[in-house]
């Protein structure tokens, strides 16, 4: 197993699919070999609490990667860093080979990273149209006022909801009139509509029933078949194994293992999450180098 880690000088890594990802590529991965997201040595502390300690991994184009770990392992912190909620103390994030530093969620979204949060994602007091377009409303300027383009937003919403495949009476109904699955469909509609390079899914099925969960997973699979890569956070290993290509395990703020789905078992992943299996992949100091 290899985690992209810099022991060797940088220049040799320009070409995608270079030596450092060789091991995973040899297994015949689902992705094209082009790195979309690359984290190197990302660290973050809150006061004396070290939330992330030298996290490095990468996500390839069209790849579905799961980020798993126990509560407090640092998953949420990492998602918040990637989605631009706050910067890391140390380390770099590269998107499409370019170093990025997001100062806000807007920056991340502009760069093509869309985030679907587990519960913070919909406004129940508004309709589907408003929800789909929160923070990115279509407007035209009229005497200095940003006037909403209602019809255009409604048409887009209806098209997106059709694509998501969940029917609802009207896109003008307030969310509070909709079922849990329909609400989550609107939240997921955002990544269908806007997810360009990478979609971060933070426990997208935590609040859903069996049937809605099934739909969400289908949607995730279908989306990644297109151009987008997915980083999924989930507690549910069954789901993880159903959907993703690769699994990154976090423990106490460190990456303790990265596994191809086909080459591992839920037992092994659980072992890594709980620390029963201790993997020597802790940081640079122990890295023998290449």
């Amino acid at each position, binding site marked *: 197993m290899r985690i992209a880690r810099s022991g060797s000088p940088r220049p040799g890594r320009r070409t995608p699919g270079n030596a450092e990802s060789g091991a995973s590529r040899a297994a015949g991965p689902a992705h094209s070999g082009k790195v979309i997201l690359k984290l190197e040595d990302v660290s973050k502390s809150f006061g004396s609490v070290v939330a992330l300690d030298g996290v490095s991994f990468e996500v390839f184009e069209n790849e579905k990667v799961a980020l798993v770990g126990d509560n407090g392992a640092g998953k949420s912190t990492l998602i918040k860093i990637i*989605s631009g*909620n706050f910067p890391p103390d140390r380390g770099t994030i590269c998107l499409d080979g370019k170093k990025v530093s997001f100062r*806000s*969620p*807007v920056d991340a*979204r502009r760069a093509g990273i869309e*985030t679907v*949060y587990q519960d*913070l*994602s*919909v*406004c*129940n*007091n*508004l309709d589907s149209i*408003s929800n789909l377009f*929160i*923070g*990115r*409303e279509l*407007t035209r300027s009229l005497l200095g*006022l*940003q*006037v*909403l383009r*209602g019809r255009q937003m409604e048409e887009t919403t209806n098209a997106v909801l059709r*694509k*998501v*495949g*969940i*029917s*609802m*009476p009207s896109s003008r109904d307030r969310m*509070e*009139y909709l*079922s*849990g*699955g*329909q609400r989550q*469909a609107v939240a997921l509609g955002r990544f*269908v509509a806007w997810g360009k390079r990478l979609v971060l899914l933070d426990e997208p099925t935590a609040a859903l*029933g069996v*049937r*809605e969960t099934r*739909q969400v997973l*289908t*949607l995730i699979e*279908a*989306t990644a*078949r*297109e151009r987008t890569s997915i980083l999924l956070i989930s507690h549910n290993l069954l789901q993880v194994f159903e959907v993703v290509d690769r699994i990154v395990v976090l423990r106490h703020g460190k990456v303790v293992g990265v596994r191809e789905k086909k080459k591992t078992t839920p037992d092994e992943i659980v072992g890594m999450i709980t620390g029963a299996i201790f993997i020597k992949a802790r940081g640079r100091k122990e890295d023998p180098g290449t």
Partner: protein
Amino acid sequence: MTLEISPAPATAGAGLPAAGTGRAGLKRAARRLLDNIVWLILVLCVVVFSLTITGFFSWENYVNILYQSVFIAILGIAEAFVLISGNMDLSVESVAAFSAIISVWLCAASPYASGLHMNTWAALAIILALGACVGAFNAFFVLRLKVDSFLVTLSTYIVVRGLAVLITGGMGMNGLPAAFRLVDTVKVLRIPLMVFLMVAFYVFFSFFLRGTRFGRHVYVIGGNKAAAYNFGISVDRVLLGVFVLSSVIAAVTGWFMAARTNGATAGMATGFLFEVLAAVVIGGVSLQGGMGSLIGVFAGALILSSIHSALNITAASPFLTEVMRGLLILVAVVLDALRRMFR
């Protein structure tokens, strides 16, 4: 992209029984009724009063009801913006009184005024600017120091009126220049200009709230602040705008109040706050934020005004008026609670 979800997409995602059947449908109907109940109450009030009270059913009285509703209705716009954004502004009444007192003090020919005999428009510019300052002051404590808006504006509610009395010495003043009073003295169809201005404010601000990005963001923040932040809305900037807007509208109301009474007293507009809150909440704006429309607030203000008119015409005891005021607030709060129950 094609998704294979279920053979009949129409049933996909229908975790609940179809709308309109059984308990869910009943609940939905109850919600719709409660959201629009303000119109039912207004029509009921006007019809019942018109039929039972002699002198109520006349053009003069209807114009008077509109005229008497101006202050509460305009302050209602300010309060609605703040409540929909998930905050509260108790200072609107005092800001209105402050603006009235200070502008009269600057302009009037009264011996108790400043003696500056300031130009009307200069004085109005000053009170609007001071209004904006009060709004920014409120916003600073709410946004930077994270104090609850109820408590911050409770303090400005007391401080601002106190300041006005402190500056002017608290004496009643009158004798305003003609330009200052134009909003009251110019009449079309025997209706004072300020009534038309009130309607114009409602048209403009309804559009501003419903049809612009700023207004949409006010609803988003009131509904789910965390989502607003996550989706890149500059929450603090929008809320600063809301507080400043609220205080500036209140300052304009102060101008209208001074124009109508041709002067100002230390105690003017006392008690308006509760009438404004009653009108806004009866009108369908939720105290929890995120819900409501300005047109409902307008109807709420008209209800209050028609009840006052009815009490006036029947020469009811002023103490009965007080009792009615209190009861109206109770009605408003109960309606808000019912709406929440059916949500």
